[in-house]
């Protein structure tokens, strides 16, 4: 039993940290961000984001786990996880769906033409993807989706509506799941397409979340996409989506840990009344309990990384990590605000907001994680059924 990072993994992380320090010194995100950049909405913020990502691409850091034949570094998934966690800890952009989900899926099932057309752009940071999965009537039950794609010669014509397409306002492409089979064909009638976001017929309408950042509704009216943009065979999209899901799960440890750090920073400095909150034994007890949960989140993530690195199967572990961490996000922000009292109402940008208001925002954002990326109810089903062998539920 050994809880250390291997020397080469520690060296890699040191190198990546040094690189990010260098970017910081050059002016990339030199001003500490109060709000996570993935949530930024202003045009200048989006420009800063894409400049940062293109820089990562230019310097060869986007294709960490890509095989060298595709221009990547051929690194282990463990090192990829360390890099993603480092970005998360520094609150740098990390929603790199193209690099992780799209590219790896294309390497497995994409055509040679698609690999040629898309991988270099993703690797350079020029192409960014958003996910077109969820519809108003199809959330957790994704196999019920009804956005329609009909073959018309060398093109497909797409009609329908997607919702919660986060990142559509800055993505170049949408990774779209559409129905090509009969309306009731469920898993057997879905096809995946890569659709340029500026294709005529696409209308993007902003949806502003309760945590202020933007997601989108996307309407598709007679949107024409070349057959060459179809990923895999027609009606075999479900297996493409399942494959993509494998690359979506990157355990994150450091988001919760960095929020714990924010709480500790707040608690150990004098407040506006000149009192240090952590001098109060009751406050210290709360901090102690939160620190335990943050450590559990770290160890749950570490365990997945360890299993994957050793090529062992993972079953319930990612679901345990997802449930525990997302429930902690809410608990941590909730308890922190409760310690702050009335001043805890003050958010980012408000004069005198404790901890710069970050935890007020974290609290408002915290519900989303529990239902996004596989609801925690489904995750608990997975733990019980796949992890512990209890009977499969009646979901189809």
């Amino acid at each position, binding site marked *: 039993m050994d809880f250390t990072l*291997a020397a080469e993994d520690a060296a890699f992380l040191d190198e990546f940290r040094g690189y990010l320090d260098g970017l910081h010194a050059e002016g990339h995100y030199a001003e500490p961000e109060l709000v996570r950049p993935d949530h930024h909405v202003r045009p200048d913020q989006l420009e800063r984001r894409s400049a940062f990502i293109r820089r990562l691409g230019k310097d060869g850091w986007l294709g960490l786990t890509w095989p060298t034949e595709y221009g990547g570094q051929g690194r282990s998934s463990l090192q990829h996880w360390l890099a993603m966690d480092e970005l998360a800890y520094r609150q740098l952009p990390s929603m790199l769906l193209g690099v992780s989900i799209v590219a790896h899926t294309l390497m497995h099932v994409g055509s040679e033409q698609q690999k040629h057309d898309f991988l270099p752009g993703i690797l350079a940071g020029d192409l960014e993807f958003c996910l077109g999965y969820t519809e108003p009537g199809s959330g957790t039950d994704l196999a019920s989706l009804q956005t329609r794609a009909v073959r018309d010669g060398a093109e497909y014509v797409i009609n329908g509506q997607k919702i919660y397409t986060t990142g559509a306002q800055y993505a170049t492409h949408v990774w779209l799941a559409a129905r090509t089979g009969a309306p009731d064909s469920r898993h057997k009638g879905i096809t995946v397409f890569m659709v340029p976001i500026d294709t005529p017929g696409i209308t993007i309408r902003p949806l502003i979340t309760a945590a202020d950042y933007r997601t989108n509704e996307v309407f598709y009216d007679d949107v024409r996409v070349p057959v060459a943009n179809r990923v895999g065979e027609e009606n075999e999209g479900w297996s493409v989506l399942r494959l993509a899901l494998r690359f979506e799960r990157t355990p994150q440890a450091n988001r919760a840990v960095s929020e714990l750090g924010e709480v500790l920073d707040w608690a150990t400095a004098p407040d506006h009344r000149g009192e240090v909150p952590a001098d109060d034994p009751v406050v210290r007890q709360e901090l102690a309990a939160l620190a335990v949960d943050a450590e559990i989140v770290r160890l749950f993530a570490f365990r997945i990384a360890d299993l994957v690195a050793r090529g062992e199967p993972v079953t319930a572990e990612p679901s345990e990590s997802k449930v525990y961490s997302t429930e902690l996000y809410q608990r941590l922000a909730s308890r922190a605000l409760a310690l702050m009292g009335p001043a805890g109402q003050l958010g980012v940008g408000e004069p005198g907001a404790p901890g710069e208001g970050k935890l007020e925002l974290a609290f408002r954002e915290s519900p989303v994680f529990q239902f996004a990326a596989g609801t925690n109810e489904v995750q608990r089903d997975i733990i019980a059924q796949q992890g512990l062998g209890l009977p499969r539920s009646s979901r189809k």
Partner: protein
Amino acid sequence: MELTLTEDQRALVDSVVGVVAKYAPIENASAVAATPSGYSAELFDQAVGLGWTGLGLEDASVLELALVLEQFGRQAVASPYPAMMAAGLVVHRLGTTDRARELVGRIVTGTRATLVTPVHGRAEPADGRVRGEFRAVEWADGAAEFVVAVPVPDGVRLVAVPATADGVTVTPTAAMDNERVGTVTLDVAVDADAELGVAEPAAWRSATLLGAALRAAEIAGGAERALAAAVEHVQQRNQFGGPIGRFQAVQHHVANMRMDADAATLLTRSAVWRAAVGRPFERQAAMAAWFAGTAAERVTSTTNQLHGGIGFMREYWLHHLFHRAKAQQLRLGTARAQLAVLGDLVLEAHARGFRAEFVDWPA
């Protein structure tokens, strides 16, 4: 990184599993508890004979000891072994005298010792004597040596008091679970021969926390067993025409139990591993103890809920896990004291540097 057991560790665990299943399986816990001694002498002799009493003292490390204790916890074993190892580790870490070395050597060869500390009562040192009344001392009746922690201005003074010394009275008392505890009354002369060493407060805290992490290993083992029992039961128990394990409400209980049990085991192994390889472990140990203590109560009470009536019957073994989870939690000290120590450790670590202490992985 390798969170699985080494071959040697796996062999040790396999050996423990077999020996415990032979001499003190959980199905026999009530029968063993009803014997005069309250523990399996055969299992105890095996522990000595197979070298488990040397783990962390003369042989292997506290990590191997924790792996043994996990298995004791899994089978709800009541035994003087964990208490005597806890006493041995305190003397091993903090003792400085010949008497300390001699006592550790005797524990390795099977001498029953147990700790008497401020959580049990207040020791009043006075003119070469130690006086006090100490409640719920583990395996007091039958212990050959008491390792008494006497608070002094600059820390904790440790003295060895043989059970045969004049002025030692032991009164057995029934505990909530199947372990044995007793009230120890001391009014004994302690001369230079009794001195084991004086520990500074930080060293005493470390030694105490190592003991807490090892108890957490036992507790985590109990939680793992409670989870396994629940999974087995809900697959066999049929109601409304099928196993109750098909109901989502039941599955979600079990999923929560798994997260609790996994977290308790991971925290505990991480803390004990740190101690075994000589890294700072105190904050991790306090976390493991606090979490395992509270999580095991949740897990064992949920397994009771899923079992229904049978889990509430004395004649079935399940209640041992529930009672042990609570009693072991109490033996870790008051909730308030545990969180106070942990709060101190968290703030001390934050002051040293958040990133290095909370973010960086051991390298």
